[in-house]
């Protein structure tokens, strides 16, 4: 084939020119009324989205040396075949697409692996190193904000019966004397039916009143309180805040762009968080055990209480997502801790009774 007809646009005006193509050895010669307009080398041709016209395919070409938008549109089937024969690269569109897709998949998987590894391995380390560096004043301020939110969620009032409050302060004071805490603490009881105790940033500890009927002795309650003080001592809330913020951010980068990927982020984060907080809880238990033995009191009652709680709940299918390790494992660890010398009780019977009745 020697000559064919095509439409040509020079990329400088929108004028449609009806041109003749001549197939030279190394280039395509484009001429209008026998006046040469352009000469495009076969090697520098680029294909730009074939169109279709009247059921027929239209090949749209550009050239790297020509104006960026200069185009040649060829509808003649024989001419298209001739060009594809002389510039075979133009015919390998689908292979190019496959290679491109493979490259994108490869890079995406590498990026994902790096982000997940950072979230899993690096973030806990960073949080651990960073948390002690946060000034206590900043943590107290953060605590104020958290406190407002918590008080909105647990709308119950704090319990302040006089005798109970006195007993609570006494217990707190004694435990505090055995612990070397980085900041002052406040302990209060909130009127709420759950069996729980929580520590906020800035050394604020809340005992939910639903917990009180479940403790059988002052030592059990002291163990629980000492455990929460352990969180304050290790600045766990700050660590957790930094770590959660960091992992959410990293995983958000990864999944955030699949629409609705939020549910996946929360799930993955829960898994990472729970594996991390198992260690945190065991460390707080160890802290509680040290505080109790320093005061000459046994650590075992905290273990007994956890064990009773575990019996009541049973192992649930969601254990893997729960932030606390299985109570039974923790109880077993606490029961192994011995006591050298037995000191006086932290609260006497009357004080313990008053504390349990702080909400009435």
């Amino acid at each position, binding site marked *: 084939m020697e000559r064919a007809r095509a*439409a040509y*646009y*020079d*990329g*400088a*005006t*929108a*004028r*449609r020119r009806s041109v003749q193509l001549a197939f030279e050895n190394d280039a395509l010669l484009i001429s209008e009324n026998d006046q040469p307009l352009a000469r495009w080398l076969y090697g520098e041709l680029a294909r*730009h*989205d*074939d*169109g*279709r*016209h009247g059921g027929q395919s*239209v090949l*749209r070409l550009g050239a790297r040396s020509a*104006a960026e*938008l*200069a*185009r040649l*549109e060829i509808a003649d089937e024989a001419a298209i075949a001739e060009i594809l024969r002389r510039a075979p690269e133009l015919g390998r569109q689908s292979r190019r697409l496959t290679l*491109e*897709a493979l490259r*994108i*998949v490869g890079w*995406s*998987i590498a*990026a*994902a692996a790096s982000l997940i590894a950072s979230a899993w391995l690096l973030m806990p380390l960073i949080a651990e190193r960073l948390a002690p560096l946060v000034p206590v004043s900043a943590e107290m*301020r*953060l605590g*104020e*904000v958290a406190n*407002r*939110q918590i008080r*909105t969620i647990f709308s119950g009032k704090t319990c302040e019966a006089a005798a109970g409050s006195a007993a609570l302060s006494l217990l707190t004071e004694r435990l505090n004397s055995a612990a070397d805490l980085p900041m002052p603490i406040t302990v209060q009881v909130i009127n709420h039916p759950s069996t729980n105790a929580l520590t906020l940033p800035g050394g604020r500890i809340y005992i939910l009143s639903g917990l009180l009927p479940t403790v059988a002795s002052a030592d059990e309650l002291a163990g629980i309180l000492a455990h929460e003080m352990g969180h304050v001592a290790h600045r766990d809330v700050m660590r957790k805040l930094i770590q959660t913020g960091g992992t959410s951010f990293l995983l958000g*980068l*990864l*999944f955030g*762009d*699949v*629409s*609705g*990927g939020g*549910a*996946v982020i929360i*799930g993955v984060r829960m*898994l990472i968080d729970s594996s991390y907080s198992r260690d945190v809880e065991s460390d707080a238990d160890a802290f509680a055990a040290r505080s109790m033995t320093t005061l000459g009191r046994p650590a075992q009652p905290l273990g007994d209480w956890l064990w009773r709680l575990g019996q009541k709940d049973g*192992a*649930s*299918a*969601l*254990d*893997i*997502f729960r932030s606390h390790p299985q109570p039974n494992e923790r109880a077993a660890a606490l029961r192994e801790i011995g006591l050298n010398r037995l000191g006086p009780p932290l609260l006497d019977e009357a004080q313990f009774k008053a504390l349990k009745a702080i909400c009435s």
Partner: protein
Amino acid sequence: MDSEQATTAQAAETRAEFTGNGSDFFDIVWRGGLLQLPTFGFYRFWFITQARRYLWSHTRLGEDSLEYTGTAKQILLGFLIAVGILIPIYLGYFLIGLEAEQAQAFASLPLVLVFYALFQYASYRARRYRLTHTSFRGLRFTMGGSGWAYAARAFGWDLLTFITLGLALPWRAAALERYCMSHTAFGNLQGRFEATGGQLFKRAWGLWLLCVGSFLLLIAGSGASIYSAMMQAGGGKATLPPGAALIPALTFLLFALYGLVVWPLFKAVQLRWRIGGWRIGDVAFASDLHKGPIVGAYFKGALAIFLLSLLFALAVGVYGWALGPTMTELNVGQVALSFFAGAAAIYLLFLVCCNMVLSRFVTYNVWASVAASATLSGLAALEAAAASSMAADQMGDGIADAFDFGGIGI
């Protein structure tokens, strides 16, 4: 009119044409959808680019088709820059929230306003990116203007639309389209917008009346039944009137009607009106878009998503049911983990399938109907157009993409 005049008038009118076919487009869609799974969604930049190239190159005006010259890398770059802009905003807002919440817990209204402004800015920039990467007959479209000026106008008009219960919507659409088109050019041919809000209002007031009327009726109905219940309670008996039980069902039906019928109908009317107002130099556009295909496209999309939801809910159920017997007291954790992982995978696949269905039934069908509905007059005037020196955007949709508007935007 003598026959010669009639022929010249006809010759000056050019019917646009859509030459694509659904199954070719679906090849791009399913491949692009599935590749988003192993790439954590990143393949969507390449998918959107391929889809646009297909739609553009099969839209024919006269003897030539459009060409999309944007690249996936530009959109990816725009996305990364948008992430870079959004991160400090998120962090800054977090810090402001820390301070503000000292006064009042859970205050977050200003963030909504920030995102509203960014959203409007982004939709302008997205339009500009698509337009400046559209070329025809070897020339590209250009678009100037400012995204922030557009966002400010949109804010004012939205406020007015809100106050007037939607009555100002046609004039809002006209004002914003006028802003966009008056900053649009094809080479050295200046664009403008000649349709008016009044024209759109004339065509769409019935829909407005239907929406506002039925909604007010619903509110009045619920109010009346609550009132009568309270009056009866005063007399010692607190029973709702028999019709009251229907109110939730009626509300649901009404919103289904808005989403499935009223919105597509309005979309069809608005698109037709909008295209009819476009002018590029001496070239005038017109459209005879029918409502049927647009309503049909949305209906097919909704039906397909409904069926997909049933199918995937069933899949999660069957998976959980199959895992049940393998659970013993010792492996509770592992079984829960594999259930979660499986359900998450099914969920992601569901999202991808929804996007495929929307791309194929809504985006593609609407594009094909709209493209085929257009008529251009005075296309010969383009012969005189010459390239302008204004450059095309070098970064893609940016923030618009970072927000991710449900994945149906092409």
